[in-house]
């Protein structure tokens, strides 16, 4: 993937995954749209990305913060119609069950889980996105995995 030289390139390279990530975090299509808008407008205003080659983790960091901001302001819920969009595509388990289990996680663990297990970021990228150490990212994902597995038994 090339380093984006313009807002358009950044947008075209990452908008789909950022929207899907927002949807997985906030669970509602309208809220996800807001997170997507806030994320990219903030990225455009803050241009250029702080580190070349880390644009993706940078966007996830902004999106995570925007989603958490929204979560503080609004009570979260998942619309049934949005579940197929919000749920991961790669897993064999029931999408609705998994989405419910993920939704029940505390925000930090939920973000770490979705970034690593659904969006496919490396632990290094997760740590940038969540502004924590790689070890902390690993333990948050592990903790989240444990809870999700328990919830799905």
């Amino acid at each position, binding site marked *: 993937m090339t380093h984006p030289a313009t807002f358009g390139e950044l947008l075209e390279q990452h908008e789909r995954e950022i929207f899907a990530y927002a949807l997985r975090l906030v669970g509602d299509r309208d809220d996800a749209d807001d997170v997507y808008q806030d994320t990219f407008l903030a990225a455009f205003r803050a241009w250029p990305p702080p580190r070349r080659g880390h644009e993706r983790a940078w966007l996830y960091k902004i999106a995570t913060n925007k989603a958490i901001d929204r979560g503080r302001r609004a009570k979260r819920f998942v619309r049934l119609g949005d579940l197929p*969009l919000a749920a991961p595509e790669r897993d064999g388990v029931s999408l609705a069950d998994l989405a419910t289990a993920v939704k029940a996680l505390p925000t930090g663990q939920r973000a770490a889980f979705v970034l690593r297990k659904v969006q496919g970021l490396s632990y290094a990228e997760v740590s940038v996105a969540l502004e924590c150490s790689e070890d902390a990212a690993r333990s948050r994902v592990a903790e989240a995995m444990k809870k999700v597995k328990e919830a799905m038994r």
Partner: protein
Amino acid sequence: MSELDVVVAGARERLVRRARREGLETVGYRVVDSPLGPLWVAVGPRGLLNIHYGAEPSPLELRRIVRAYGPGVLPDARRVDDVARELDQYWSGKRRDFDITVDLSPLTPFQQKVLAVTARVPYGQLITYAKVAHNAGNDRAYRAAAGAIGDNPIPIVVPCHRVVASDGTLGGYAGGLDAKRRLLQLERGAVPPGGWPPAHMSRT
């Protein structure tokens, strides 16, 4: 197109509208279909900046645009509507002159001069590279003029396809010689093998 693609497309439209309102968008682009394949078209605050043969921008052109107008280059179908409409009319033979404003300001003064001469060649007429150099005020800068024409960021609208070699052969074309042949065919009928004899060249 998946459901997510549709949802994201709607979100993108709203985002670009907001970016435009906030002055974050300086240049809008979109890919326009044409009989010569997809064209990447960019419009800036002073007019049409770039038509590139293909669905992706040329890295060189994009760098030039970013140097002139910053990184606020966003996919924005609406900003390209007028250009797309005039191009459609041109392809269907209903338009001979373009009314859209072109922006050559990111280019050097010499390139601008050469392309301004090129832009004045009427529909269906031909001019030689040497004549363009002469009209741009420098007979000896023949090769530099040919270079500027080859580097034309706004083909079709700035009609560099009307510039041919002094012996009447087609010379070169950034979109490929086949594209040049088809543009000339649209404007003046089939291209004879070996090009047009020098008598067909514009004398002005």
